């Protein structure tokens, strides 16, 4: 397998054909294939089911065609036994197959596609290269309909009563992107029951889509019929006011839900872990990633329907749990790669070696490689030039190390593919040949030359020569850049003593990293003190008590209450924070910082809260449930202060909390009338079960809209709630002796903290993570992590998972004695610098500070660990006093001159 260089010669000639699973069967693929051009590992695999040679011993053309002889037909499956300390199940999910739902006729009507198929139509690497075409006649669709809850929240045609919690969002995304592709006359419409855009920034995305012309129709489509041979479809549905509508659409997308993968059944059997009734792995709320068997953990959709950010958080949380149980064996099986000593080349005349690659036919077939090599030899400073068939193959790498040593080269230029993928590979080869890895330059003569000018060989060759001369002129000026590593203080600081903060501190301390908790108030616990039961009924107060006792008695955790952070400095691995507690200020040194400042239910003056004792907020009821027992008529009002102009976000936990209390009210007093006034019921994921249970117990759900909110007024003998009921099309007046408001969850005031640590916040004052999906618990600046309500409102089990995730991310830094930092940083020439501070204000990473030098006043100084090498400071410095290592002004200009 390591001979294959994925040049694709074999797949062109291969006769075998099969529907391509990657493209959802829209197009077919060969027997020898790579799932998609960016696959990792980028190696071709043979599909035994349709390979003529493996089936009938015929053909074998791929072996003949393969330039590197990488085809090995008798590569059989082999059994490997591994001894491991822990197992993490991240088996993912299987997309629901809508064939069972005959009313949508997926499979018979060509223009009814699933959302995954539509993703393939949308993507540039898909079967239609991103142009959306109707499967029936290839024309661009004008009206597209998305049908929500296909295979979710449905117990008559399939047994998935849960909500898959992501379909509403991806339907909106596909509609918005479709409009981008097809232009403004494309009319997307989404048919839904409850629009569940509950995650961070999701509500704003939903509002933008509405403003951008996506129609949202609250109705479940009854059936789809084809009305003409071109494949146009007619949808039959009932609107809320009860009249039956028919509307034609060019294309229908079924927002299919998620199911447990088929392989999970026997996997659970072999591992001995329990599954829940939907075949997802069973976990309990207060240890969200632990399965029923100790040492085996689960993360992602294998545990239940969730979106990518939540899956990534759980992935890190699972890694943290495994880390805790194996803390003693950390680093025992990990091998450190040792490189030969580095040869000093300063002051030597440049002796440049140019290696031009053929890359099989990709370059050699188009550019005249020998001519490029001859041309390279004529360039000043080049002492050696050669041509290789495949520079990136292992044998050529070893040959290059010898050539570098024999020819005593001190600069290397490789003319081949893109440095973005292969630069690290060649840099490692340089290090094996005693050369500093930054004495290396790549000329991209494949992706940006031969592949894109393949119709004119002569021009491609000339451009290749020019690119090589640019690289050589730049290489001439390259200099060794010493590696940069920073030692790490193996302890962490946790800001905030709620459940999130405590879980993070405990997770780190149990891995041997001491943690300090800074709590503003005088006791630990945070918002969790107001919660009695999780949505699955587990006792939170007991969990909280023993969490607090574990934290307070843990030898490696130092708790500071009534403490406030007054100053912070330093960078990843070497932070210093000033904390004022009880009158004196102490300095804590730590390698990582976890922000868990939490949040709280917001105040409001709406609906007579505070003016009438019978108008309560959610946690008031948690503290004295007897208020519910006495009440004969209870009204819950949702989205109080959430999802409006002031706070355009959803607080996520209120629907579940209110419905849980509504069920409790009905249980305590079956005769009582219980109402829930809502805008969208967002009991995402398995919580849908609660919504069904509440309806079965007779809780009445009435929808209201932002335009005409319900009104609560005092009347003699209690309260009266006026609300317009869209189903009955009438205004109702409900006599209520208890009104409970689900007020928005807001973060605590983080302004000061944000300025101290240079953290950014979104406009709702929640902290902004580095990347919503791929780094959901990291901050942009390294060494700072985020978890809990301060990131975004979330139920307690997600808080715990995110806290463990933050601990795991912090552990990736704290577990190393020192960490390598990219050495390509800015370099400041103290003579030229006048200390104007412009660079400090421009630097997005806080990687430059002004330093007092006696006698000269202030001078800029680079914090190399935080510097990302973007170069904004260098290009904006009025004195031109800043230069970037490896991207110096004169190196860039040299390449420009060679280009002209």
């Amino acid at each position, binding site marked *: 397998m390591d001979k294959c260089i994925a040049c694709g010669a074999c797949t062109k000639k291969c006769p075998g054909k099969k529907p391509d699973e990657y493209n959802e069967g829209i197009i077919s693929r060969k027997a020898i294939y790579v799932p998609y051009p960016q696959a990792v590992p980028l190696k071709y695999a043979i599909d035994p089911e349709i390979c003529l040679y493996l089936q009938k011993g015929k053909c074998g053309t791929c072996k003949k065609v393969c330039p590197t002889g990488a085809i090995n037909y008798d590569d059989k499956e082999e059994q490997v036994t591994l001894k491991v300390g822990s197992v993490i199940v991240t088996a993912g999910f299987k997309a629901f197959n809508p064939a069972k739902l005959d009313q949508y006729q997926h499979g018979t009507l060509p223009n009814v596609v699933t959302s995954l198929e539509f993703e393939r139509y949308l993507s*540039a690497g898909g079967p239609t*290269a*991103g142009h959306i075409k109707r499967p029936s006649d290839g024309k661009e669709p004008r009206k597209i309909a998305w049908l929500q809850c296909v295979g979710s929240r449905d117990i008559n045609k399939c047994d998935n009563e849960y909500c898959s919690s992501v379909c509403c969002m991806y339907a909106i995304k596909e509609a918005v992107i479709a409009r981008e592709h097809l232009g403004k006359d494309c009319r997307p419409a989404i048919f839904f029951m409850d629009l569940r855009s509950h995650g961070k920034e999701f509500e704003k995305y939903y509002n933008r889509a509405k403003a951008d012309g996506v129609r949202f129709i609250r109705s479940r489509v009854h059936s789809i019929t084809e009305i003409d041979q071109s494949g146009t479809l007619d949808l039959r549905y009932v609107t809320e006011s009860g009249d039956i509508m028919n509307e034609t659409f060019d294309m229908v997308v079924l927002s299919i839900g998620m199911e447990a993968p088929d392989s999970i059944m026997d996997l659970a059997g072999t591992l001995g872990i329990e599954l829940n009734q939907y075949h997802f792995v069973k976990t309990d709320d207060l240890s969200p990633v632990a399965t029923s068997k100790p040492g085996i953990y689960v993360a992602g959709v294998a545990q239940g329907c969730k979106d990518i950010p939540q899956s990534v958080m759980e992935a890190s949380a699972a890694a943290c749990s495994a880390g805790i149980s194996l803390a003693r064996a950390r680093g025992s099986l990990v091998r450190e790669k040792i490189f030969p000593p580095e040869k000093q080349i300063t002051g030597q005349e440049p002796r440049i070696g140019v290696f031009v690659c053929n890359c099989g036919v990709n370059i050699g077939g188009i550019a005249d490689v020998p001519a490029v090599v001859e041309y390279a030899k004529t360039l000043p400073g080049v002492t050696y030039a050669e041509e290789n068939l495949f520079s990136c193959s292992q044998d050529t790498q070893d040959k290059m190390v010898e050539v570098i040593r024999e020819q005593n080269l001190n600069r290397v230029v490789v003319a081949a593919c893109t440095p973005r993928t292969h630069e690290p590979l060649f840099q490692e080869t340089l290090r094996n040949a005693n050369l500093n890895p930054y004495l290396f330059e790549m000329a991209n003569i494949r992706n940006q030359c031969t592949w*894109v000018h393949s119709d004119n060989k002569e021009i491609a060759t000339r451009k290749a020569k020019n690119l090589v001369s640019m690289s050589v002129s730049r290489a001439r000026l390259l200099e060794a850049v010493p590696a940069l590593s920073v030692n790490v203080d193996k302890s962490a600081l946790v800001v905030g003593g709620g459940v999130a903060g405590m879980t993070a501190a405990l997770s780190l301390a149990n891995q041997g990293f001491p943690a300090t908790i800074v709590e503003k108030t005088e006791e630990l616990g945070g918002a969790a003190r107001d919660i009695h039961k999780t949505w699955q009924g587990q006792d939170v107060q007991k969990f909280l008590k023993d969490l607090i006792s574990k934290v307070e008695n843990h030898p490696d955790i130092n708790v500071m209450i009534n403490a406030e952070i007054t100053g912070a400095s330093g960078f990843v691995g070497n932070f210093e924070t000033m904390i004022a507690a009880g009158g004196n200020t102490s300095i804590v040194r730590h390698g990582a910082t976890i922000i868990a400042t939490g949040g709280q239910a917001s105040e409001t003056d709406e609906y007579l809260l505070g003016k009438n004792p019978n108008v309560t907020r959610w946690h008031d009821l948690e503290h004295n449930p007897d208020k519910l027992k006495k009440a004969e008529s209870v009204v819950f009002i949702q989205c109080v202060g959430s999802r409006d102009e002031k706070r355009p976000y959803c607080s996520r936990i209120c629907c579940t909390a209110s419905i849980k209390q509504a069920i409790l009210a009905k249980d305590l007093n079956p005769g009582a009338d219980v109402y829930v006034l809502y805008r969208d019921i967002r009991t995402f994921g398995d919580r849908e079960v609660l919504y069904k249970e509440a309806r079965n117990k007779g809780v009445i759900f009435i929808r209201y809209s932002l335009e005409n909110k319900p009104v609560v007024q005092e009347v003699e003998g209690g309260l009266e709630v006026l609300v317009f009921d869209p189903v009955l099309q009438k205004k109702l007046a409900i006599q209520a002796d208890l009104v409970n408001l689900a007020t928005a969850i807001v973060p605590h005031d983080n302004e000061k903290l944000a300025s101290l640590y240079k953290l950014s916040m979104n406009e709702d004052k929640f902290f902004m993570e580095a990347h919503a999906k791929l780094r959901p618990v990291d901050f942009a600046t390294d060494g700072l992590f985020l978890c809990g309500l301060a990131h975004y409102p979330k139920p307690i089990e997600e808080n715990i998972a995110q806290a463990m995730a933050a601990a795991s991310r912090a552990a990736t830094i704290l577990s190393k004695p020192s960490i390598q930092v990219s050495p390509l940083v800015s370099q400041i020439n103290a003579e030229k610098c006048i200390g*104007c501070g*412009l660079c400090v*204000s*421009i630097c997005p990473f806080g990687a430059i500070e002004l330093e007092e030098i006696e006698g000269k006043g202030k001078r800029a100084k680079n914090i190399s660990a935080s510097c990302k090498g973007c170069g904004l400071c260098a290009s*904006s*410095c*009025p*004195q*031109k006093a800043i230069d970037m290592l490896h991207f110096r002004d004169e190196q860039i200009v040299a390449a420009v001159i060679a280009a002209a």
Partner: protein
Amino acid sequence: MTQRLLDLAGIGKDRLHLEWLSSAEAQRFADIAKKTVDAVRAMGPLDQDLCSMQLEAAQLTVDNEAVRWLVGKELSITSKGDVYGRSWDETKYEEVLDHALEREYHNNLIILAMKDGCSSVREISKRTGIAVLRISYLLADLERTGRAEFKGMTDSTAAFAAR
């Protein structure tokens, strides 16, 4: 700012294209490449000797500390206001920047023209294409800052030279 400068120098802002794209928008990159090449081809070759002086002046302008200051400070001043607490909106700030840019560019052009041997305002105007009134106005400024000096009168025309 650089495009504005290229316009001033008569080279045309379409010789510099600024684009933003994500790493997945391959087709868009190909279209941008084609669009840029066609736009520049339509403008014909950049005649080096015709505008070498303009380019030199542009180079000096771009290296000028004051201009670089104005560009660097734009973001912080338009968002947080200047040292006197006055708030600036972008268009107003851009006007000041353009004005300073133009003045600095013309100053450099005049100095270069004088180094090229022109001495009278009319000769400079012919060589640089800048209006006579503008040149005399700027020359007074250059004299005051010691970058040019008045060489005396030769048959009723004033002669200047770069310092």
